[in-house]
């Protein structure tokens, strides 16, 4: 029994990728004759299986790694020609997030997306497989292929409703920008292969550290990182995000915002520690990532607060939070990484719940415009509650998962001597949380003056048929479970210590290389101090939530302030108008900004 269990854990990473793939194939074949409930049930079984597998993997990896050489092409004396999957606790945690969101999304789609057919379920399962594959890949080219596959499936999912003009256009822009990003990454992969003759992450890292550093490696780092930053939606690579998420079916938005962008940041972290740490200058990388993150957090926050299209607003809030993730990873130390992991998980729960909630609005009122929906949400108290808690989660109210991640991140930043990022993180929380709370107050409570164009329909396509009681359960189920999971992240101490072990193993480059290439025992796992939150962290969290409420009120009642006070906001208005002008562009300009981003990152790292 024990040997069987250990054999099974040895192949678990491959099963987690092959299972959903196989499920997609079965859905495609059987779905032509089987009824809709069969697609739903099969997809759900596969997603639950992935979730269980991911949880198991998270448990058994501990401070080590599960290394699986596909086809048993084991390395000899540290040399290998095989392809490897590596699961450590951080990547297993990503699998849990991906599969958990998939379960939530499938529960929601069960009743909310009625017109979808077999293809939708097959695409979702392919998306699950490719995201899992990307999280577990231990090989550069393998990662590139998963990256592209994840992209192609996402373009198809975003443009799924081909009868909608905006939907296909959004998908096309998304596709062009992301594919260009993938090509940029591939150039980086090629450079690394040219320099080392290896594609395996551990082998590339080892070879680079054995040889004197040269500029080609730094350039390769710039290209590789730029490519995944496109997927991560970091400024200025982020322009596709709002266009794609404004038009995508809401369950797809939940997956893009909750899981896919986080995988981009995950790849930055993985490639830094395994490949480039000790090769590329750490101080310049730290500056580059933290500054990039700060700019992303602020610009995303401002764009978020100044939207009235709820899905666009949520998309920009994702951009803002990606900035926070990048700051966390960019500090390039274990405690900050552990905090970022918790923050990513908390954010995924909150953001997915919010997107599913906006799906209910779209479904019921055929609109996601904050002004049109003024006061009309009073009929949906459950959805309103999800919006309110989701908004407070984005603001970082204790005891939600985002708060724990944020307070630990702020502490890690202060002890790393980067105190200046604390107000930036706070700004991201307050702006994004404030924006969602403003929507909640206007739509679900009807607070404040009635907007001039309230009640006018703009003709968004509804996603489902008539509204039914069962559909409410179908939303409130996943929404409340997601938010409860967010609370559990903060409340269960094992999660905190687990994140600390995960991060300590993640940043332990020599152990990773030794274990993957089979070069002797990696030694005992690095010990990690359990992160503890402090009373002042709770106070800070409460203050941030209060500030978000104040900002939300400002957003609602700004028009009724005295003229003298309103004059103070004029510079902000100029900034917002300018940013909106930059963002109202077409795909060519997005490509131009992408090149600017690559050049900026290059300047930061090379000089």
């Amino acid at each position, binding site marked *: 029994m024990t040997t069987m269990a250990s054999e099974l854990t040895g192949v678990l990473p491959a099963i987690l990728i092959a299972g959903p793939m196989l499920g997609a194939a079965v859905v495609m074949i059987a779905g032509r004759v089987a009824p809709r409930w069969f697609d739903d049930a099969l997809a759900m079984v596969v997603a639950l299986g992935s979730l269980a597998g991911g949880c198991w993997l998270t448990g058994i990896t501990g401070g080590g790694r599960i290394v699986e050489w596909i086809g048993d092409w084991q390395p000899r004396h540290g040399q290998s020609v095989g392809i490897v999957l590596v699961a450590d606790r951080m990547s297993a945690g990503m699998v849990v997030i991906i599969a958990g969101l998939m379960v939530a999304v499938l529960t929601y789609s069960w009743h909310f997306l009625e017109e979808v057919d077999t293809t939708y379920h097959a695409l979702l399962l392919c998306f699950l497989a490719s995201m899992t594959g990307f999280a577990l890949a231990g090989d550069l080219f393998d990662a590139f292929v998963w990256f592209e596959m994840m992209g192609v499936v996402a373009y198809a999912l975003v443009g799924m409703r*081909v009868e909608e003009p905006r939907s296909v*256009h959004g998908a096309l822009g998304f596709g062009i920008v992301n594919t260009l990003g993938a090509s940029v990454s591939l150039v980086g992969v*090629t450079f690394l*292969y040219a320099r080392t003759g290896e594609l395996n992450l551990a082998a590339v890292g080892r070879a680079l550290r054995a040889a004197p550093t040269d500029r080609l490696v730094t350039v390769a780092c710039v290209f590789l990182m730029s490519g995944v930053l496109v997927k991560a939606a970091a400024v200025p690579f982020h322009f596709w995000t709002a266009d794609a998420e404004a038009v995508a079916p809401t369950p797809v938005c939940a997956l893009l915002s909750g899981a896919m962008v986080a995988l981009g940041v995950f790849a930055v972290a993985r490639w830094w520690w395994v490949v480039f740490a000790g090769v590329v200058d750490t101080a310049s990388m730290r500056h580059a990532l933290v500054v990039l993150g700060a700019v992303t957090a602020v610009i995303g926050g401002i764009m978020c607060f100044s939207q*009235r299209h709820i899905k666009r607003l949520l998309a920009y809030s994702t951009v803002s939070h990606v900035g926070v993730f990048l700051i966390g990873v960019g500090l390039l130390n274990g405690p900050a990484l552990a905090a970022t992991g918790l923050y990513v998980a908390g954010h995924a729960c909150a953001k997915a719940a919010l997107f599913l909630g906006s799906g209910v609005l779209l479904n019921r009122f055929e609109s996601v415009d904050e002004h049109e929906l003024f006061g009309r949400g009073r009929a949906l108290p459950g959805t309103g509650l999800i919006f309110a808690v989701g908004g407070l989660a984005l603001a970082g109210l204790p005891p939600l998962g985002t708060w724990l991640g944020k307070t630990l991140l702020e502490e890690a930043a202060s002890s790393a001597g980067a105190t200046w990022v604390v107000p930036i993180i706070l700004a991201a929380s307050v702006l994004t949380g404030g924006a969602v709370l403003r929507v909640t107050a206007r739509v679900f409570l009807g607070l404040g003056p009635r907007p001039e164009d309230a009640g006018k329909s703009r003709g968004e396509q509804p996603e489902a048929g008539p509204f039914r009681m069962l559909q409410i359960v179908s939303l409130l189920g996943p929404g409340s479970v997601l938010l409860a999971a967010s609370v559990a992240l903060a409340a269960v101490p094992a999660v905190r210590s687990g994140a600390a072990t995960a991060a300590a193993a993640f940043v332990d480059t020599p152990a990773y290389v030794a274990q993957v290439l089979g070069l002797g025992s990696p030694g005992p796992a690095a010990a990690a101090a359990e992160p503890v939150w402090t009373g002042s962290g709770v106070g800070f969290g409460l203050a941030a939530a209060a500030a978000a409420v104040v900002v939300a009120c400002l957003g609602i009642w700004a028009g009724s302030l005295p003229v003298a006070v309103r004059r103070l906001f004029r510079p902000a208005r100029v900034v917002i108008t300018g940013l909106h002008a930059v963002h109202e562009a077409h795909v*060519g300009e997005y*490509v131009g900004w992408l*090149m600017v981003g690559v050049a900026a990152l290059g300047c930061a790292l090379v000089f």
Partner: protein
Amino acid sequence: MFAVLPYLAAGWIFLIGCYGLATSRNLVHAVVSLAVVQSSTYLLLLAVGWKRDATAPVFGDISPGAPVVDPIVQALTLTDIVVGATVSALLLALTIQVAKRHGTIDPEEIRSLEQDSGDDDGQ
């Protein structure tokens, strides 16, 4: 000089593709420009594996130990071409849908069409 020529060519193709993308006024042209960018990565990969006086890495009729070019990059190029073809097919299919729904494939015009139909993201 000859040794760096393929790299210069790959860089040139990459940049010209990006230029095409950035200035494109036609979505079919944009998708083809993207294919041009992808072609630069094929050339770059093959250039990395190239060796003077080496032959194709097929050992049916040559003796083991004979100089051959790197087979790995050739496999990567092949995979890359498959991925590129998939992406181009999908994006062109989306372009057809855009043309059907909007009646134009000029990104500038589509943008203004969408703004007229009330998709202002501002206040």
